[in-house]
């Protein structure tokens, strides 16, 4: 324990004032006229009894009030050991709700794993739920209320965007600055490669944050994506116009796929062809 403004302790000298009021001032002996001292004899009480403090309760209250005022001005603080704080941590549950999480039971798996983390948390741990897509949405404030946390987890629905881990890292860094306790970041995601930023430094986390990954796509299924589309800016002759698309397959084998060209909501043409690809190979 320490004091931020110890010089205010000089105000403790004011404690002498109530003592003066209760003891010394009361002792002042003002003469009282009396008709005759014929039957009186000089008597002096012992100094201890004479100076006995009166109204002790009132004196105690006055002293306590002054002492509290002095301490309040001195601004006391308590040094708590880090070990004492270790048990008191903040769990951040970031649930990926990007387009890819629609596949299979990924989102349901993510939710159930998040609930499991909530159930397994320590009694003093606080939990905050975040939803991750192209931005980070904060679904709850840090809380120990399991009901609130479960409702927030269940409210996560898949979107159409892709995840951006750099925005998640930014939010976590901001929380880490305001929260002194250790932070555990639990990421429930299918860990899409596209969620990685261009620079790895953008996902650096503060020292008090530990990252725990909860992957929900253990066996990656075959995935086909339109990687690039090349089309003319202006079309003069529709018979001569050509649109070239690059279709890529991930974890895929040779497959037959139908590709449609849709312009302004209107299907222009449908091409069907057989893609002969090797595993993890991109075909045009």
């Amino acid at each position: 324990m320490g004091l931020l403004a110890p010089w205010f302790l000089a105000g403790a000298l004011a404690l002498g004032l109530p003592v003066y009021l209760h003891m010394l001032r009361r002792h002042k002996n003002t003469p009282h006229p009396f008709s005759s001292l014929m039957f009186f004899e000089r008597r002096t009480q012992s100094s201890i009894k004479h100076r006995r403090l009166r109204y002790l309760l009132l004196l105690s209250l006055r002293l306590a009030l002054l002492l509290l005022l002095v301490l309040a001005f001195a601004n006391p603080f308590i040094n708590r050991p880090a070990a004492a704080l270790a048990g008191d941590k903040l769990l951040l549950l970031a649930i990926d709700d990007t387009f890819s999480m629609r596949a299979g039971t990924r989102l349901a798996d993510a939710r159930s794993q998040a609930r499991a983390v909530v159930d397994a948390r320590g009694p003093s741990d606080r939990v905050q739920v975040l939803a991750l897509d192209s931005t980070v949405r904060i679904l709850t404030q840090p809380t120990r209320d399991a009901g609130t946390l479960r409702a927030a987890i269940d409210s996560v629905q898949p979107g159409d965007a892709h995840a951006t881990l750099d925005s998640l890292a930014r939010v976590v860094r901001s929380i880490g600055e305001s929260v002194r306790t250790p932070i555990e970041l639990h990421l429930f995601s299918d860990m899409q490669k596209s969620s990685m930023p261009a620079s790895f430094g953008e996902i650096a986390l503060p020292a008090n944050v530990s990252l725990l990954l909860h992957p929900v796509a253990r066996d990656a299924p075959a995935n086909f994506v339109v990687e690039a589309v090349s089309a003319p800016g202006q079309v003069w002759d529709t018979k001569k116009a050509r649109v070239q698309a690059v279709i890529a397959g991930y974890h895929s084998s040779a497959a037959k796929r139908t590709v449609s060209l849709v312009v302004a909501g209107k299907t222009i043409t449908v091409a069907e062809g057989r893609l002969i690809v090797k595993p993890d190979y991109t075909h045009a």
Partner: protein
Amino acid sequence: MQRFLNPDVLAGISGLELIAKTVVQGFVSGLHRSPNFGFSQEFAEYQSYTPGDDLRYVDWNVYARSDRLYLKRYRGETNTLLTVLLDASNSMKYTSHAVTKMDYARYAAASLFYLTSQMQRDAAGLIVFDDELRDYIRPSTRQGQLHRLLAALDRAEPRARTDFAKPILHFQDMLRRRGFVVLISDFYDDPEKIVRAAEPMRFHGNEVLFFHVLDPQELRPKLREPMTLVDLETDEALEVTPDYAQHEYRAKMDAHVKLLSEKVRAAGMEYKLLQTDLPLDDALREFLTLRQGRL
């Protein structure tokens, strides 16, 4: 009516005459029989004239025949004389409530004067003293005597110290005629000395009544903490403790009151303790009892 005898109520009335009238009439209304003896036409006896007697009662026919002065006495007529000796020393200034001992003594004296001179047409006189004789109003039944007496009571402001022996020596000359002598004081002196000083008045055939006026704080002082008390007469200061005032002082004061009353009664005089927070009717009742006993 008892309420009007309360000294705190009387303190709110201005004018001693009105106070005396209030007290006496309030007291009289509470009695079963009127103490107003008044005059009667029923002849009782002749009494030898002594200087100072009211000449109105001299039987001039007898004087013409016998060349001797006699007073005609009628049944019911008292023709007595009251002299109040009022202590006006500084100690009488003391009070712990609205009425000082001096005020209380004035009320008592004024009530006696009213009862005597207005209601019974007797002569009344006043001697005010401290360690000297300060004021003297000769007993008389003359017109305006009550006003003279009340004016003298008004003038009697406390000062100096009490000394019974010296002034009472002078009283002997003034109290030639027999009657009632009421001595009003707080009697802060040796009881033996006080009684010895007052005894000659008794020897002259007077009925002497002691009114011992004390404040309740003097009888039962209540000190919450040690304090310095200053004697009103000597200016001597003394630090006293609540414990002493609670026990030893009370015992000494009680012993003083007891000794004084015993010695006064042993000397054939009467004693009455008057506490300044109590109504005045006790004083009047004591006086009337004494008066009736003598008549």
